[in-house]
């Protein structure tokens, strides 16, 4: 029995060390992490691009970006990811809002997201359409451009904060 206890003690001391070795070497806060799932990834170390293809889903904190293709561009000097681009049937979910469009450019440096091509943003019953929407994630502000068409907004007047944050 004593022998068994000794073995158990050794295992319980060794196990956390082993598990720790398998985790990431440098602790990174969850908000800085980008989680991406796809069918294929092409990395070109010369041009500094990583292209995810097929049913791509990227999650960064509470922001979810989906699309047929997602490109990560990184600064070849600093080797830091600077831009995230989603192409083809792009879908974005952030702060309770959902958006669909043709293309999304998300600057990780400026924390600014630019949605282009038949943009539709919805939040509950509210709906906003345009050709280009620029969202400043830091200041929580949006600029909507109609392009050739017109900007259309349907708001729920009963709410204090809506799709355009008019209540703020």
């Amino acid at each position, binding site marked *: 029995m004593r022998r068994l206890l000794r073995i158990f003690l050794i295992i319980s001391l060794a196990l956390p060390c082993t598990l720790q070795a398998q985790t*990431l070497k440098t602790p990174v806060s969850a908000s800085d*992490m980008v989680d991406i799932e796809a069918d294929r990834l*092409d990395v070109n*170390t010369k041009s500094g691009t990583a292209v995810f293809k097929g049913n791509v889903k990227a999650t960064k904190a509470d922001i979810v970006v989906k699309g047929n293709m997602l490109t990560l561009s990184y600064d070849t000097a600093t080797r830091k990811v600077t831009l995230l681009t989603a192409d083809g049937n792009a879908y974005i979910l952030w702060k309770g809002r959902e958006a669909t469009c043709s293309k999304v450019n998300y600057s990780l440096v400026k924390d600014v997201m630019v949605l282009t091509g038949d943009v539709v943003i919805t939040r509950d019953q509210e709906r906003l359409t345009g050709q280009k929407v620029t969202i400043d994630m830091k200041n929580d502000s949006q600029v909507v451009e109609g392009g050739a068409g017109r900007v259309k907004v349907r708001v729920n007047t009963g709410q204090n904060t809506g799709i355009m944050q008019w209540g703020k």
Partner: protein
Amino acid sequence: MWYKYVLVLAVIVIIALIILYSQNKEMGSPLKSGYALTRSATNVVMFERKKDTGKTMVVSAKEVVETGDQVTYLKDFHVVQQKGVKINGKDAIYDRNRSILEVKGPVNIETKDGSQVLLTGFVWDRESQKAFSKNPVKLEGREGIIVADAAEFSDEFTQIALIGRVHAKIAQNFLNH
């Protein structure tokens, strides 16, 4: 009495002819393809220099077995390409005729930019500069991990394609080394 000397001389001549004949036969007959001369060595370091590019490659191994059919078996080996990749593995077979390196078991590839690729077995066609693995692959950076079902490498390992169930968990400066 003289016939005894003649008999001894005749025997000597016959023996000499037999020896000469057998030597000629050995020198003149080419090695059959199935005939594999084998040589082995331990703690070997091999250098290779490409004629066209002048790039060198150093292969070191704890044990090397070379057969007559241009096949080299490597155990506990390291491959270091000049300004290129570093490959560490347990067992490999190098077919010199086809310039194909087949690595078995766990293998670690360090690319030119410092990324670590962990694979279980892979095939490298040195002629076409393409390599692939049909087994699960893990790409490790200092602050993130990408896993997939298979991998393909080309253009001296500067282009990496991860195929099937790609899952990346990366920090913004994942590629920063």
